[in-house]
C-alpha cells in the first residue's frame, strides 16, 4: 500500500515597518500594518479562499477518503481574525469536515528551538492552546518551523506527551541513500519521524509552472504515474509513506491560478482516489498502519526544508542574522525576567523566522527566492529596520 500524507504550511509573519534610525524614540509602529493587511488580503483572494474551497469539496466528495493536514501558525490566525474573519471561518469550516488533521508548531513560527529551549516550549504551548481554542483540536503531530529537526528536539518534545509523530525533511545527508518513503524513529525511539519526499513535493511546489523544466507541462496523469511507480521499488511488501509537504501558498500564490494548479490538484486527487493500492492518511495514522518496524534515524545537525542546503543557512548564515536573533532572544529573556508584558508580546513577534530570512545574503538561485519573499529591497535594510526597532525597545524597556 502507498499512503499519501499531504501537509500544508499556513503562515504569515508580522512584517516590520521601514523603521529608520531616526524613528528611534518616536511613536512609529513597529509593524507595517498596511503592508501586512495588503499581503494578507492578496493571498486570501489568490490562495486561502479558493484553496480551502477546493480541498473542502474534495473531502466532502470523497466521503472522508481524501485527507489533508495543516499547520497554521499563531501569527496567521491573529492576522486572519483581524484582517479577514472570512478566511478564519473558512479554515474552521474546513476542519469541521473531519478530513483535516491539525499539526502543532511554534506559535510564532520561530527558531526558538535553536536559540532558547524554554521559549520554544512556551511557544509550542501557546500554539497548542490557540489550536484547541479556535478549532477544538488537540494535535498529536508536531512540525518545527520550516521542518527544522535535530536529535535533541525529540528530547525536548517529551515535554508534550501527546506528541507522537514529527514531520521532517527527507534530506539526502541524513537518509544517506535510504528511501524517504519509510518512516523512521527518532534516535531515542520516542517519536515516529515522517519524511518529506522532496522531489515529488517540489515538483508541485516549485517546478509546476517552470517552462524550463524538462517535465513541463506536468499533467495529473504523469504525476499519478510517478506515484504509482514508487511501489515498484518495494519488494518486501512494506507499506510506503509518501510525504507531500509544502507551503499552502503554493496553490494560487506561488503557482498562480492561471498555471492550472487548482485543476491539476483536483484531477490528481480524483485519479489517486481510484487507485486500489493508494490511500490518503493523516500523519497521526502512520503509526498504526505500519507493517514493519521502523529503523532509528540520527540527525545530529539541524536539517530543514529551506533552500538547496536544507539546513539553517536561510536564517543563520551571516553575522547580521546571528546578531539580530541573538539580541531578540536576549531582550525577550530580559523582558520575561522583569515581567514586562507589553514588550514580551512584541518581542515574540520579532522571533518569527521570516525576519531573519530577509537578511540572508546567500547568492545563486536561493538569493532570488529570498528576494521574492522579501518586502525590503536589501538584506542590509531588513537588518537595519529590525535593529532600530530593537534599539527603540531597549530604550523603552529601560524606562
Amino acid at each position: 500500500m502507498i499512503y499519501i500524507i499531504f501537509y500544508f504550511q499556513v503562515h504569515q509573519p508580522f512584517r516590520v515597518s521601514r523603521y529608520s534610525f531616526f524613528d528611534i524614540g518616536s511613536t512609529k509602529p513597529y509593524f507595517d500594518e498596511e503592508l501586512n493587511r495588503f499581503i494578507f488580503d492578496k493571498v486570501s483572494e489568490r490562495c486561502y479562499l479558493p484553496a480551502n474551497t477546493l480541498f473542502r469539496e474534495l473531502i466532502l466528495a470523497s466521503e472522508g477518503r481524501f485527507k489533508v493536514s495543516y499547520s497554521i501558525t499563531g501569527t496567521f490566525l491573529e492576522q486572519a481574525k483581524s484582517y479577514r474573519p472570512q478566511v478564519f471561518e473558512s479554515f474552521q469550516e474546513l476542519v469541521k469536515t473531519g478530513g483535516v488533521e491539525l499539526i502543532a508548531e511554534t506559535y510564532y513560527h520561530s527558531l526558538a528551538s535553536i536559540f532558547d529551549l524554554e521559549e520554544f516550549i512556551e511557544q509550542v504551548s501557546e500554539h497548542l492552546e490557540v489550536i484547541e481554542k479556535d478549532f477544538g483540536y488537540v494535535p498529536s503531530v508536531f512540525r518545527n518551523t520550516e521542518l527544522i529537526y535535530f536529535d535533541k528536539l525529540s528530547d525536548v518534545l517529551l515535554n508534550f506527551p501527546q506528541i507522537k509523530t514529527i514531520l521532517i525533511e527527507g534530506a539526502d545527508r541524513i537518509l544517506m541513500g535510504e528511501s524517504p518513503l519509510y518512516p523512521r524513529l527518532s534516535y531515542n525511539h520516542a517519536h515516529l519521524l515522517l519524511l518529506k519526499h522532496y522531489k515529488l513535493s517540489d515538483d508541485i511546489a516549485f517546478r509546476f509552472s517552470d517552462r524550463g523544466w524538462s517535465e513541463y507541462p506536468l499533467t495529473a496523469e504523469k504525476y499519478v504515474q510517478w506515484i504509482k511507480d514508487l511501489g515498484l521499488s518495494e519488494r518486501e511488501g512494506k507499506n510506503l509513506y509518501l510525504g507531500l509537504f509544502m507551503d499552502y501558498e503554493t496553490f494560487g500564490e506561488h503557482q498562480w491560478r492561471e498555471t492550472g494548479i487548482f485543476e491539476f490538484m483536483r484531477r490528481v486527487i480524483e485519479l489517486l482516489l481510484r487507485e486500489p493500492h493508494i490511500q490518503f492518511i493523516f500523519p497521526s495514522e502512520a503509526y498504526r498502519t505500519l507493517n514493519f518496524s521502523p529503523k532509528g534515524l540520527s540527525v545530529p545537525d539541524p536539517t530543514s526544508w529551506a533552500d538547496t542546503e536544507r539546513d539553517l543557512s536561510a536564517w543563520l548564515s551571516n553575522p547580521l542574522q546571528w546578531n539580530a536573533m541573538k539580541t531578540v532572544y536576549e531582550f525577550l529573556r530580559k523582558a520575561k525576567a522583569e515581567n514586562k508584558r507589553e514588550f514580551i508580546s512584541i518581542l515574540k513577534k520579532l522571533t518569527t523566522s521570516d525576519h531573519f530570512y530577509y537578511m540572508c545574503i546567500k547568492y545563486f538561485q536561493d538569493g532570488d527566492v529570498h528576494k521574492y519573499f522579501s518586502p525590503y529591497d536589501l538584506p542590509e535594510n531588513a537588518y537595519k529596520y529590525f535593529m532600530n526597532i530593537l534599539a527603540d525597545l531597549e530604550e523603552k524597556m529601560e524606562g
Partner: protein
Amino acid sequence: MTVLMLTWEYPPFIVGGLGMACYGLFKALANLGVTVKMILPTKEEVFFEISKPEEADYPVAKSQNGEPLSPTPLRFFPFIYSLPEESAYSSLKEFLIQAKPLEVNPPLPEVPDEVIERLNLILAQGDNLLHKVRLYTNNVLKLSQKIDFELIHAHDWLTYPAGLLLKKVFKKPLVAHLHATEFDRALGFGHPVIHEIEYLGLNYADKVIAVSHYTKGIAMEHYKVPEEKIRVIHNAFIARTKSPRKFRKFREPVILFLGRLTPQKGPRIFLEIAKKVLESGVKARFVIAGAGELERELMLEASSLGIGTHIMFTGFLTREEVEEALSISDIVVMPSVSEPFGIVALEAMHFGCALIISKQSGASEVIENAYKVDFWDVEKMVSHILELISNPEKLRELQEKAREEVKKFNWKIPAQEVKKVYQELLHSK
C-alpha cells in the same frame, strides 16, 4: 569683478563637502562685491548668477539670453573609481614620477595646443563619468560665449578640462581650486585619467588654491606644482541652523562617524575603536552614519561582534538627518585616512560635539579644541573616548569650547583671500 565659477556641486545638489564649501565661499564673495556666474552639470544650457549674498541661497538659473529658468540637474554620479580594463595610460605612474616642474612663465602661461588635444582624447573615452565631464565641458564652452567674465575659477578635476579650454579660448586667468585629489579618494594611485587631468589643471592654471597645507603638500609632491603658485585658503563653515538642537535619543553616550563609507573616510578604523571601547565594558552607542561601498562589509564585521544594538547603521542620510545625527551625538570621530579638509569637523563643533580627528586632515591644521590623532593610532583614540566618557565634566567643557571656537570659522576671511588672488591675477595682466 565677475568670476565664472565652474563646479560640479552646489546645494541642494550635493554629494560631499564641495557643494557646501562653494555655497559658503560664493555667498561671502558676493558680499565683497564679486559677481559669481556659475555653471553646474545641468542638462539645460543654463548658468546661475549670484551678485548679492542672499542670491547665494537660491541662485536663479538663466539661459544664454538671460531668461530665468528652472534647470533639471544631471544625475550625480557615485564616486567609484576603477581602472579601465584596457588602460591606455599604463605608463602614467612613470609619467607622474618623472614629470619635472613645468616651466611657468608668469603671469599668464599659455595652454599649449598639445594639452587641449590631450584633453580631447582623454574625454573621448567610453568611461561613463568621463563622458559626463565631456558633456559638461561642451556645455560650458557653448554658454561662455554669451557670458561676461574676467576670470575663471574651477573647482576640482571634474571642471578642470572646461577651465583649461576657456583659458585657451578667452585668454583669461584660471584659478584651480583643489578641494580633494585623486590621491585622497583612492588612497594612493587611483584612476590614471583623473590623475592626468589633475596634473594638467593644476599646472596650467595661473593660481592654485588648496584647502589645506596637507593638500598643498600633495599638489607639490605628486603633481610637481611649484610652491609659489599655490595659495592655502582653509575652508570655513556656514551654519544652516543658527541655534542647533541638542537632545538625547539614547541613555548611553553616542559616538558618531559621519561620512561616506569609503576607505578614505576611515570607517573601518571607527569600527576598530568601537570594538575596543565596548570590549572595555564601557556602555556607549556607536553610530555609523552614511552610505557607501563598504556598508555591507562594515555591517557584517560589526554584527559578528555580537554587540546587539551597540553599533548602529543609519544608511543614506538626508540633510535634516545629518543634523539630527549631530544633535544626538556626544562625540564625533573623524578618522579619515586622507582628508583635504573635512568640513564635518566644523559642523560637529557647531552642534556642540566633542571632536577626535585624524592628523591627516586639513581641519586639524586650524581647529584647536579637538583631539588630533594619527589615523592609525586606534589605541589613542580609544583612550580619548574612554577619558571623555568617564569624565562628563571634561566632555562638556570640550563641547562648549568647540561650540565657541567654530564661530570664528566664517567665510569672510577666506573670501577676502580669494578676492586678493583674483586681484593679483587681474592686476598682473
